[in-house]
Structure formats: structure tokens, C-alpha cells
């Protein structure tokens, strides 16, 4: 753990030196919350009576630290870009409705914007309050991406009815995991949720039952990642899911270039599934299961080019992502041309809501 952190710091420093060639004009950072407790336990779970500090689905202490650390690292990385003082007018921070995301949003800000000089309002506490905004879950098509969309919902259920997709659940591992867990496990999502619980229990040093071998977990993780990918299986689905976020970023960057007043730092606290929606809408990954604190960064540069970086967890290496048809120094215009097919013009209308 410690070694990873040191490695992380070193890599951060390496990239800090390396990626400061052209000045940054605006930042959009979408990150997953930190380590959490399981949201639900399965029938035969040996830890069904375990006390989860912070409650089911709650952020763990280590999870809090992860995002605070992520904020501190981002602060170091963007040292030359970040303003000396935090101003609420210059930063937006949007979160998902869920408590663990709202808390993670506060934590990232705590790491990113510790008060200095005259901003220190309490000499014993190097922290300052930062407003976190969110909209109700059922109205959110940006962060949680759960707002109802008829056209999308139909496309998704049609896809689930395809033989090839149905066959994904007709494998031996589904029978095995059903038997071991005592759960029905009908869908890929059911399998993903069981995997999440096992994965988290393992992270929290709880010994897993003997059936949950490394091989089984590996296989389950693949299924989980496949499940996350299926939400954006087609171009239409990409457009109606991750497209909303990509459109927002693009619009904000365009406004920024045209010198319309825009927050220069835009933070978004969301979930693994939201990250996969975005990554897949941008055609950057096939399947992926983002770790805690996984982060996608979109940088707008002074020369009106755009760069995207991704870290698969809070202390991962920040890796530049190369767009398939826009390799080095992709301009905003090129970016818009490449992705215009997945950018919704009128989401509500396209959803037939």
C-alpha cells in the first residue's frame, strides 16, 4: 500500500514534469467515489452480521483518505494551473445524489483547496467549506445518468433480449455462483453486484469463502465489466447515456475559448458505471471495471486543443488517452467532428420523453 503510494507520487511527479508543455485553460475532472462498504450482502454471505462502519454503501475511512489523497495529488499535478486561492465562482463541483459521492466531492476539494494565507479562517483547521451541488437521482442525466429516457430504455431492453446477450448468462459460472451464494442471479448486473460485494469484503481483509477462488473472481470481474459496457453497446445508447456529459464538457470548453464566463475547474463526483459510460462514449475502452477513485480528466489547452487522461484508481498512473481518429493534439473542432454522432442535440426530445 505504502509502496504503491510512493510509486504513485513518483509517477505523478514524472508526468507533472512531462505534460506541462502547453498551458491549460480549463479542466473537467470526473472521478469515482472512494472505497465503500457493500451496498447489499448475498444470502449465504458469512459476513451478513458484520458491522460495517459507515453503514452499507457508506464510504470507509480508507475511502475518505483515498479521495483526499487524490485531491492532494491533483493539486500537485496542476500546481501551475490552479489558482492560488479557491473561489466558489471559479469552481463547480457536481455530485451524484448518493452520500458517498457527496462526501467524496467534499474530500477531493479538501485535498485540492486547502486554505492558505488570508483564506485560513481557523488556524487549527486547514480546511475550508466548498459547495457541492447535485440534482435528484431521477432528474440526473449527467452524473448518475439515470433519468428516464424512453428511447434508451427500449434500446437497452431490446439488446438484453438478443440471443447472444442472453447466452452470456447461460454459462457454468452463473450456475456455480447461484449455488454458492443462494441468490437467483438472473442478469449480468446481479453477477456484478455479487462481485462487488466479494471484492469489497476482500479489500476489507475479510476472508472469502473457499469457493470464491482467484479464478472465479477474475471471471466474475470480466462479467461485471461486460455488464457495465452493455449500457453503451450501440451508438444510439452512447449518445443518450455518456453523450450528455461529453456534450456538456464540449460546450463549456467552447464557451471558455470564446471568453464567456465559465468555471475553469469543473469537478464531477460519480460512480464506476458513469465513468464507463463516458469512456465508452469516447471509444476509449472496450470493457473496464474502474477502481475506487478512478478519474477521467479532460483538459482544454490555450491552443484550443483537448487532452484526456485516465487513472483506473485513486493512485494509478495518469495515462493519456489517444482518440482513435484524432491522435496527437486534437483540436476542439476535430473533437466535435469526430464525436458529433454521439452528442445529443436535444436529449429530452431524442428520448421521446
Amino acid at each position, binding site marked *: 500500500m505504502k509502496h504503491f503510494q510512493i510509486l504513485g507520487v513518483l509517477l505523478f511527479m514524472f508526468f507533472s514534469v512531462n505534460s506541462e508543455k502547453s498551458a491549460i485553460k480549463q479542466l473537467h475532472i470526473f472521478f469515482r467515489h472512494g472505497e465503500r462498504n457493500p451496498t447489499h450482502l448475498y444470502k449465504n454471505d458469512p459476513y451478513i452480521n458484520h458491522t460495517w462502519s459507515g453503514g452499507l454503501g457508506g464510504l470507509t475511512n480508507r475511502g475518505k483518505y483515498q479521495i483526499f489523497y487524490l485531491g492532494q495529488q491533483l493539486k500537485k499535478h496542476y500546481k501551475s494551473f490552479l489558482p492560488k486561492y479557491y473561489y466558489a465562482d471559479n469552481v463547480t463541483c457536481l455530485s451524484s445524489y448518493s452520500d458517498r459521492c457527496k462526501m467524496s466531492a467534499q474530500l477531493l476539494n479538501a485535498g485540492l483547496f486547502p486554505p492558505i494565507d488570508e483564506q485560513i479562517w481557523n488556524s487549527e*483547521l486547514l*480546511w475550508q467549506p466548498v459547495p457541492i451541488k447535485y440534482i435528484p437521482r431521477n432528474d440526473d442525466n449527467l452524473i448518475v445518468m439515470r433519468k428516464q429516457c424512453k428511447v434508451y430504455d427500449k434500446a437497452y431492453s431490446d439488446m438484453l433480449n438478443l440471443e447472444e446477450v442472453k447466452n452470456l448468462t447461460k454459462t457454468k459460472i452463473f450456475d456455480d455462483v447461484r449455488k454458492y451464494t443462494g441468490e437467483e442471479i438472473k442478469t449480468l448486473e446481479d453477477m456484478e453486484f455479487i462481485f462487488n460485494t466479494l471484492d469489497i469484503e476482500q479489500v476489507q481483509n475479510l476472508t472469502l469463502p473457499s469457493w470464491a477462488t482467484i479464478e472465479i473472481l477474475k471471471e466474475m470481474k470480466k462479467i461485471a465489466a461486460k455488464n457495465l459496457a452493455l449500457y453503451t453497446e450501440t451508438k444510439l445508447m452512447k449518445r443518450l447515456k455518456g453523450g450528455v456529459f461529453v456534450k456538456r464538457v464540449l460546450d463549456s470548453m467552447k464557451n471558455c475559448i470564446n471568453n464567456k464566463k465559465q468555471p475553469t475547474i469543473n469537478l464531477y463526483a460519480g460512480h464506476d458505471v458513469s465513468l464507463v459510460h463516458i469512456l465508452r462514449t469516447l471509444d476509449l475502452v472496450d470493457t473496464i471495471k474502474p477502481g475506487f477513485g478512478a478519474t477521467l480528466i479532460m483538459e482544454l489547452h490555450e491552443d484550443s486543443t483537448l487532452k484526456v487522461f485516465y487513472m483506473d484508481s485513486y493512485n494509478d498512473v495518469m495515462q493519456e488517452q489517444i482518440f482513435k481518429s484524432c491522435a496527437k493534439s486534437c483540436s476542439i473542432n476535430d473533437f466535435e467532428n469526430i464525436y458529433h454522432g454521439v452528442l445529443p442535440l436535444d436529449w429530452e426530445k431524442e428520448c421521446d420523453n
Partner: protein
Amino acid sequence: MAFIFILVLNFLIFGSFGDELKGVVVIYRHGDRTPVDPYPNDPYRNSSYWPVGFGQLINKGKLRHLELGRWLRNRYKNYLPEIYNANDIHIQSTDVDRTLMSAEANLAGLYPPMASQKFDKNLTWQPIPIHTIPEKMDALLAGKKECAKYTELRNALFKTPYFRNISRKYHDLFAYLTVKSGNKVTTLEKLEYLYNTLLIETFFNYTLPTWAQSAFKKMEPLAFLSFATQTYTPELARLKSGPLFDQIINYFQSRIDQSESKKMMVYSAHDTTIANLLNSMGLFEYHSPPYASTVIFELRGNNSTNYLNIFYKNSTEPQNMTLKTCSFNCNFKMFVQIMSPVALPLSQWEQACSNDGTNWYLQPFYIYIFGMVIFVLFAAIVLKMLLNLVNKKTDSSYIQLPNEEEA
């Protein structure tokens, strides 16, 4: 000896022997801020005069709320566990930077992390989720959601003799403020905004222009009155503060029924929220609710009876507030009854806000009149055509229309 001491202490903390604290609702105003929008001729209009953006919380405001949080911690130390647990408390804020930040600073004082909750050895702070609803959707706390019925009633309020008289009486003052400030100060609310800006500038030790110095004291009673106008009648109060009262009552009821785990409900809002709450209960003494002013409801009781205590803290110590038709220890059922003209479930708010059947042009009387006018005009045109046919030669085809009263 120790036993007596504990008894006395118990009395001091809980008000009377044997009654336990069962539920707490806290509603506070945000801390010190910069002006929301300086007036056009404001000598301090430039943002360089202000440490943070317009309408934002300043350091003093953060500290004020940290201290209020500590004060709450001390007041409820035997009631609210020191270790933060999401099941113990619900914090809701309006969707405005300064109220969201005030709530965070307040929580830093209420819940400094205990050893087991510290995630960084140097930081005595922990994240706590704050709930909010976008302003335009918020009929509960912000009271900014569009309500047609409310707008109509409030417009009608300003047409009553009392308010017309005020406009007349202070006409010169409004005109003076309009000329001097460069803003059209035509309503009490606009005067209140200007007053707030001037007040904040005095807090920052900025010298007001001479016109403002002389007008300031004259503005004060009008600004105070303005705070009362949002909930001036029970019907206005019902549409503005009704959902919040309904939520407060439901919360206490579910505490009595033991179906609610939350020991405390906290709302972070504005001066108007405080004024509206107090005024809806008939407890508003005309003033401008200061930074971090707080209304507290405490439910106490035993197995047989439950009563509510109301406090208003606008300085160091909270004042006991007694409803006109109830004692300080107000029986909870009595309180519910007293507030019944005001309390309005959020689910019924939308309906209450629609002026179905109350739009003047949809009322039967006006539909009747409208129909008659159309009929008369139609009849007149037909008559005119007939007369033209009959009497082509005469140019003086003037016909007198019957007037409405006769029709």
C-alpha cells in the same frame, strides 16, 4: 449530593424532571457574506472591495457557523452521539453556495471526527453529506419554486389599503432611493435588498455615501416590514412555509411513534426563511434576522404527553418563544392544531399553487359578461347590415349600442 446535582443538571438541560428530549429541528441562516448585487451607483461596486465573489460566504461567516456548530454540540452532547452516523441526522440546505458552505462549516463544529473517524492525522474534519434540491424545484426550503397562486395573492396584498398607504406615505423616499442608487427602488423588497447591501457595507467598515447615511435609518422599518410580507397572511404563509412546517410536524410525529431514527433535522437557509418561519407562527418581531440566527424546535415528553419548545437564537443565548395561543411547553397536539391552517404537505403544494377556477377570466361571472359582449356586438353588426340594406340612402346610419349594464 451527586444525585441532587445530576437532578439539577438534568432539570437545567431538559427543562423538567423525567421528560426526555425526543427530537430536534434546527433552522439557521448562513453566515456573513458579501453583498449579492451592489447597486449601480455603489462606490464599492468593484469586486476588488470584496474578499470573495458577490453573495459568497466570508471567513467570518465560516467561523460564525463553526461556533454555532460547537454550540449545538455542547447543547446536545447528551443527546446526539459524538460519532457521526447518517442515521442520526439529516442536513438539508438551499442550493446556494453560502448556505451549502455554512452547513459544512457548522458540521465541522458539530462533528469533529472522533479518533475512529479520522482519515488524516493532521485534519480534524470529516465529510458529511448535505442534501439539497435545485432552487427552481425547491418548494420546501428555498421557496423559490414558481407558485402562481402565491404570486397572485402577494400582488393582491400590495393593493390592500395598508400597503397602498405605505407606498403613498414613503413615495418620496422610494423616489429618492431610486435617483441616488441608480436602481429602481419601487417595492419594499427592492428597498430591502438595497438596505441589506448598505448594512453589509457598514459591517465592512465602508463609509456610506452621505445620501445613504441619512436614508438608512428611514429604510430600516420598511426593510423589516418587507421580511414580514412573504407570509403576511395565513394563506401566504401556507404556500411559502407550509411544506416546511408539514415536514417538521411529520418528523416530530414519527419521533413520537418511534418510526424515525434521526435525532436531529438541520436546515441551512436564509434570513427570509427565518422571518417566514417566525412570522407564520405569529412570533416575528420586525427585524432583519442576523447571520447564523437560528430557530430551534425541541420535542420533549414522556409516555403520556409530548410538548414542543421553540427557541430563537439571534445572539449568544436562545430566547424562549411562546405562541400566543399556547404555553411555552406547548402540547404537541395543540401545536399541530395551531399550525394546521399553515402546514401543507409538499404533495399538495402544487395543487394549492394552481389558481384553477380562480383566474378572473375563467370565473362564471366573467364568462357570462364576455359572452354577452360578443352577443351584443354580433347582434349590432347584423342589425347594422340590415339597416344598411333597408336604408341605403341615408348616410346617418349611426346606431347606439346598448351598454353592458343594460345587457
